[in-house]
């Protein structure tokens, strides 16, 4: 909120620091200082971002002056003029003879206070008031309206002036009801805008119609005009949530609703009513009835808060004395009932944010000055931090992919497709939580082709795969893509092997074993295979991309190293090449051979594939080594004879 330096100064006998200085010092001890700006009439506005929990007392000059006084440790004047408190009001008639106030719901209308002013002369405001309002960007209307405005800014309590003679119900006895609106009830506000209300909203009404949207805006017709002579001064206190809802539903945000939404302290009505009445007498020539009609004049008491020196120092990390603590609390207006180590603190009635010891400790800390707090490393309780398997796995995957030339991307969770939907999306293209990473990753790779030959990308992130009445299923996925301009049919095998090779490298690093690849053609997803570990499906693979479920994969990692002494005997190797019909897979032939191999086999792999005249040739190499002896050629030939025999039995032709 922008605060007028001039207006604040009214509350102090001491000369306040310059706006910049004041802005900064209050910024360090109370509210963030957003800057200063020049205002009309030589004034300067200081913009402080009043904290949400202080909006109940500091969206006002009285509240802010008290805060400035506490920060600067100087005295302040709650009342701009002493005369306000010394005013004599009119005892020749009673407000209650003219008006009765009824409240429909005492929980929502916590307090309503009315007072009658007679002999009002509506006219221009004095120059000081016009200038003051202008300096904070408010236009002067007439003396009565300006007074209501002034009182709200000064005390934080919104007030309203009703033209008493426009209220229905005869000349001398009117009933004001604060009730729920009827569904569909219409009211035109004082700017001429019509609003349709519902039954959750409160209105201030006479016997015939709603006069005012309670806590939000006055209505047309009951406001003050040139002809007004009798004014009903009105100040109420409403439930903050109710006003917040009304203001939102109507999309009507006013200076009054802003204050009510932040919960105006109950005692503010008293401060506001006395200033309102004083100014009505001073500036409009009115006589204001001494009697106030009030639905809840007795304020509920507030509990004291127990605070100890030890707790205060322990939380802040300071060594303050009891006297220092008490003196800091007194600066914000607390009263302290002295005790030995612990004491009872009575907080200012309108400091709604002060509810327990921690709140008081904050007051002590910020006024003492956080700049005086030494940085201290904690010394207690060290436990060796664990590193989760998710953290380990994602780091291993990422590190290997980076060395293989992959770039990590992060895509947005919110998009136009998915199974989990938002009720309140930002826009139509961001209404769903992603259920896969691959699609977006492939698109990103395509975009990168504009400047990169073979963009290799990966992402590890959460996807949202299901939703029930009570929960949403979220899973860690890992997707990757090798971006290609166009993959011709005859290149597909080659590109797939590139993709598969990347995955195999990562699986090996993670210690994932027993991997099988199964053909799985899904036109929609564009996948051609599934990867299984120990028979469990861990993900889908396309020609040049993959998407793996990390949560499942984690179950199969075995980072433990099993050391095996290396053999000192020589290795012996053998090759076999075989022609097979074109529909036979490598895995099929490999399995056949594998069954014939002895335990001395240390390596067995495919090293060549070619196709010729409708036949395929696979060439395998196997390496043998014993831990206990040198293997002979005869031994190896013997093994190979078994392999040849097996292959021939299947009808394959050995090359």
């Amino acid at each position: 909120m922008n605060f007028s330096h001039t207006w604040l100064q009214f509350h102090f006998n001491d000369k306040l620091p310059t706006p910049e200085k004041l802005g900064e010092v209050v910024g360090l001890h109370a509210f963030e200082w957003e800057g200063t700006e020049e205002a009309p009439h030589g004034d300067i506005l200081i913009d402080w971002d009043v904290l949400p929990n202080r909006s109940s007392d500091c969206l006002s000059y009285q509240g802010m002056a008290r805060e400035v006084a506490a920060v600067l440790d100087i005295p302040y004047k709650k009342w701009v003029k002493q005369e306000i408190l010394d005013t004599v009001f009119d005892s020749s008639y009673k407000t209650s003879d003219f008006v009765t106030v009824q409240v429909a719901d005492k929980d929502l209308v916590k307090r309503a206070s009315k007072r009658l002013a007679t002999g009002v002369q509506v006219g221009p405001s004095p120059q000081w008031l016009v200038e003051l309002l202008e300096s904070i960007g408010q236009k002067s209307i007439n003396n009565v309206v300006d007074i209501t405005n002034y009182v709200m800014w000064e005390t934080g309590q919104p007030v309203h002036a009703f033209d008493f003679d426009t209220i229905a119900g005869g000349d001398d006895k009117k009933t004001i009801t604060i009730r729920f609106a009827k569904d569909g009830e219409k009211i035109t506000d004082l700017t001429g805008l019509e609003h349709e209300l519902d039954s959750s909203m409160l209105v201030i009404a006479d016997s015939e119609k709603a006069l005012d949207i309670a806590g939000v805006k006055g209505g047309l017709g009951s406001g003050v005009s040139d002809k007004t002579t009798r004014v009903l001064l009105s100040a109420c206190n409403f439930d903050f949530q109710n006003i917040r809802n009304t203001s939102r539903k109507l999309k009507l945000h006013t200076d009054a609703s802003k204050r009510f939404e932040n919960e105006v302290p109950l005692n503010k009505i008293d401060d506001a009513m006395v200033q309102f009445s004083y100014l009505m007498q001073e500036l409009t020539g009115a006589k204001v009835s001494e009697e106030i009609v009030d639905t809840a004049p007795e304020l509920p008491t507030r509990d004291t808060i127990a605070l100890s020196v030890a707790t205060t120092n322990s939380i802040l990390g300071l060594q303050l004395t009891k006297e220092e603590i008490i003196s800091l609390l007194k600066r914000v207006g607390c009263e302290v009932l002295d005790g030995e180590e612990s004491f009872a603190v009575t907080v200012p009635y309108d400091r709604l944010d002060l509810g327990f010891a921690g709140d008081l400790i904050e007051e002590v800390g910020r006024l003492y000055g956080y700049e005086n707090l030494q940085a201290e490393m904690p010394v207690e309780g060290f436990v060796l931090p664990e590193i989760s398997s998710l953290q380990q796995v994602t780091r291993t995957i990422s590190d290997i992919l980076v060395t293989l030339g992959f770039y990590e991307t992060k895509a947005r969770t919110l998009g136009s497709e998915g199974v989990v939907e938002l009720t309140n999306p930002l826009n139509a293209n961001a209404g769903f939580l992603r259920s896969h990473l691959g699609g977006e990753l492939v698109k990103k790779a395509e975009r990168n082709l504009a400047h990169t030959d073979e963009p290799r990308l990966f992402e590890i992130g959460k996807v949202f795969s299901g939703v029930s009445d009570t929960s949403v299923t979220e899973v860690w996925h890992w997707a990757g893509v090798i971006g290609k301009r166009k993959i011709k049919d005859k290149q597909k095998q080659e590109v797939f092997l590139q993709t598969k090779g990347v995955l195999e490298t990562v699986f090996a690093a993670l210690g994932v074993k027993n991997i099988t690849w199964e053909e799985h053609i899904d036109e929609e997803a564009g996948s051609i295979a599934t990867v299984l570990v120990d028979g469990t499906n861990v993900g889908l693979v396309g020609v040049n991309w993959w998407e793996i479920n990390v949560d499942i994969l984690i179950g199969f990692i075995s980072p433990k190293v099993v050391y095996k002494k290396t053999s000192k005997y020589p290795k012996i190797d053998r090759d076999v090449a075989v022609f097979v019909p074109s529909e036979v897979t490598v895995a099929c032939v490999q399995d056949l051979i594998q069954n014939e191999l002895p335990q001395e086999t240390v390596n067995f792999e495919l090293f060549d594939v070619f196709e010729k005249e409708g036949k395929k040739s696979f060439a395998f190499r196997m390496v043998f080594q014993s831990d206990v002896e040198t293997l002979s050629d005869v031994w190896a030939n013997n093994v190979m004879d078994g392999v040849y025999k097996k292959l021939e039995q299947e009808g394959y032709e050995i090359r």
Partner: protein
Amino acid sequence: MTFIDVTRPGTKQEKGNLHIISKTIREIEDIFVRLGFEAQEGPEVEDEWHNFDALNVPENHPARDMQDTFWIKGPEKMVLRTHTSGVQNRSMIQKGKPPIRIIAPGRVFRNEALDATHEAQFHQCEGLMVGDDISLANLKGVLLEFFKVFFDNNKTQIRFRPGYFPFVEPGIEVDITCMKCAGADKTCNVCKGSGWIEILGAGMVHPHVLDSAEIDSKQYQGFAFGMGIERLVMLKYGVDDIRDFYDGDIPFIKQF
């Protein structure tokens, strides 16, 4: 001997790169692990209780206005988490009792329009330390060490101002010295001449937050903090548009 031209460029070995957000999260994790903090994670779709109630943000509290929340269609009271603070409750329950030192980096969501400094999704890192006598002075100590290492500048200073977050009391706004001008340039576009940069929100854990995690608030106390990771990266490297992080453009990713 055969002539070998040693001035010819070496054969190119194509190496990729981590995303700067991941890199930064690692860096944060590694610094805090050295300080005895354990990295934890929590769900991105949270129930309302963990996201708000357990953090002392009661229903109808104006503080729920501070963050505009995405709600999930279907299950009741599920939201996209608006902060990583929801992990506080889960990790305290998991640990059972102090000493507790955790950090929780992760993705968070706010229902706000996209521009150069606002994304509907971004990353945060939560920090939490609870023990017998953990104080605001300890918070200052830990954060100061962190920022010195993170910004690789031993002269980095830290400043506390009052702040308000329902889950802490006292609540603190933390500033650090401007990494661009250190206060020397009155026209600096990073700190706007103040010499200070607002970097994170923190405070002493509110007793209600401890109690809701079954940690006895009469016996234990601690601090919590939450920082925006994109913001740290933008400040550290001078990135000026938050949307660049999500484009997946290799020339952007390559630089870090």
